[in-house]
């Protein structure tokens, strides 16, 4: 099943080659120097896409855990903190949040007497991490709650405190269940990082847009763009499966 989209793309490409009036592959023809330059320019955005995705995911994985823990409290007031954060952040579409962070947040900082400029790079990372953290928090919560209550009780009876119980007993068991959906979220971040193009991040999508403006070949260039994301996501998927095997997430318990 995973080969189907590839197959469709191949067919599109072949039919395109046949009738040169609709397709103009010369813009990204690696045998010509101009084509090669264009390809280099497009793929050159890969580093930025990967970098903002990885940093945003790292922040989100940490932040998500911090947000998830209050949800497990026995006190309603503490649980409420989690609920408000998750419901609020989860309901903001990514693009408006990006605008708010990039154009609005510096004004908030300024009013507080802080001079913190937010460049496109950090604007994108903050937005992606914040937006994603609400989802990772829910993943953590579900994973931790799936560990039987008796595990916490046993940990308490051998004198472990809250942090030790989480660190040595609950999280190591939960992480095996959490990893697959967390990896899913990482793929989501990689794709959502395309929004960073609108605030001027030189990542994959921005570069494709810029090339389209000069070359007038949207079909070919955006096709290559899609393939770039496809390759990126397939590499991540393979990495995740390797990690799952190593941590035993693929085993049934």
């Amino acid at each position, binding site marked *: 099943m995973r080969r189907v989209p590839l197959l469709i793309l191949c067919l599109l490409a072949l039919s395109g080659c046949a009738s040169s009036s609709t397709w103009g592959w010369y813009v990204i023809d690696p045998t010509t120097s101009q084509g090669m330059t264009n390809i280099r320019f497009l793929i050159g955005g890969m580093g930025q896409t990967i970098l903002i995705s990885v940093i945003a995911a790292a922040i989100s994985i940490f932040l998500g855990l911090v947000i998830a823990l209050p949800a497990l409290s026995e006190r309603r007031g503490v649980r409420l903190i989690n609920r408000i954060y998750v419901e609020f952040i989860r309901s903001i579409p990514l693009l408006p949040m990006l605008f708010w962070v990039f154009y609005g947040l510096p004004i908030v900082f300024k009013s507080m007497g802080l001079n913190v400029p937010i460049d496109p790079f950090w604007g994108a990372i903050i937005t992606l991490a914040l937006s994603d953290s609400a989802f990772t928090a829910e993943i953590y919560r579900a994973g931790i709650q799936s560990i*039987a209550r008796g595990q916490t009780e*046993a940990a308490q009876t051998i*004198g472990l405190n809250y942090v030790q119980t989480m660190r040595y007993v609950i999280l190591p068991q939960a992480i095996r269940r959490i990893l697959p959906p967390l990896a899913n979220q990482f793929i989501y971040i990689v794709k959502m990082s395309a929004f960073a193009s609108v605030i001027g991040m030189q990542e994959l999508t921005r570069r494709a847009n810029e090339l389209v403006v000069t070359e007038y070949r949207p079909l070919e260039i955006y096709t290559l763009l899609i393939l770039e994301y496809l390759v990126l996501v397939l590499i991540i998927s393979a990495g995740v499966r390797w990690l799952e095997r190593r941590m035993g997430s693929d085993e049934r318990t």
Partner: protein
Amino acid sequence: MPNAAIEMIGVNKWFGDFHVLKDIDLTVGEGERVVICGPSGSGKSTVVRCINRLESHQKGTIRVDDTELTDARGSIDAIRSEVGMVFQQFNLFPHLTVMQNLTLGPMKARGLSRAEAEERARKYLARVRIPEQAEKRPGQLSGGQQQRVAIARSLCMEPKVLLFDEPTSALDPEMISEVLDVMVELAEEGMTMIVVTHEMGFARKVADQMVFMDAGEIVETGPPSEFFAAPRSARCREFLSKILQH
């Protein structure tokens, strides 16, 4: 009567509107073995779980070794450090080896070095007669072996009191005796124990005091000789006739 290891005075607990424990008075002396029995839902597990604050009580006093159990973190920690617990479902940590299950508490909660903790773990594994299973995971052991590891895990904390919450109820019949044998040995060594169980043979052998509970109340207490021969209350007689007829 030796010093009281555990004292419960007028303990009451509600789950919402449901009155699970009604004026529980129970004193367990040092080195004493108390067996609690009663029909399911009678509150016997809740009594045990209140002693180490897995459940909180709303009224009354619980003292362990003269430390009163309150909401204060210090009081809860102090009491848990003296009270070990063995669960019906074992509750071993499945991602750790037997050895790691046993050394986790001593190393993290008591600050023992790995070498000290492992030495202690080997001692108690030998005591529950499974020294050869140290490197296995709980999932690779039989139920009886798992419960013996759970007992060893509690012993590694060197508690003054051990609580057993239906320790053999989740076991296949042929594995019950290997767990009970270990418990009898502990009793003979003078461990203070509160055991919730339906194993009346075990109760006769080791109990100093029998407690019968029904509907959240302690209905009857007494030494096993009187308790089994001549139960005073009708509810207790009925219960015993049901579980002893086979």
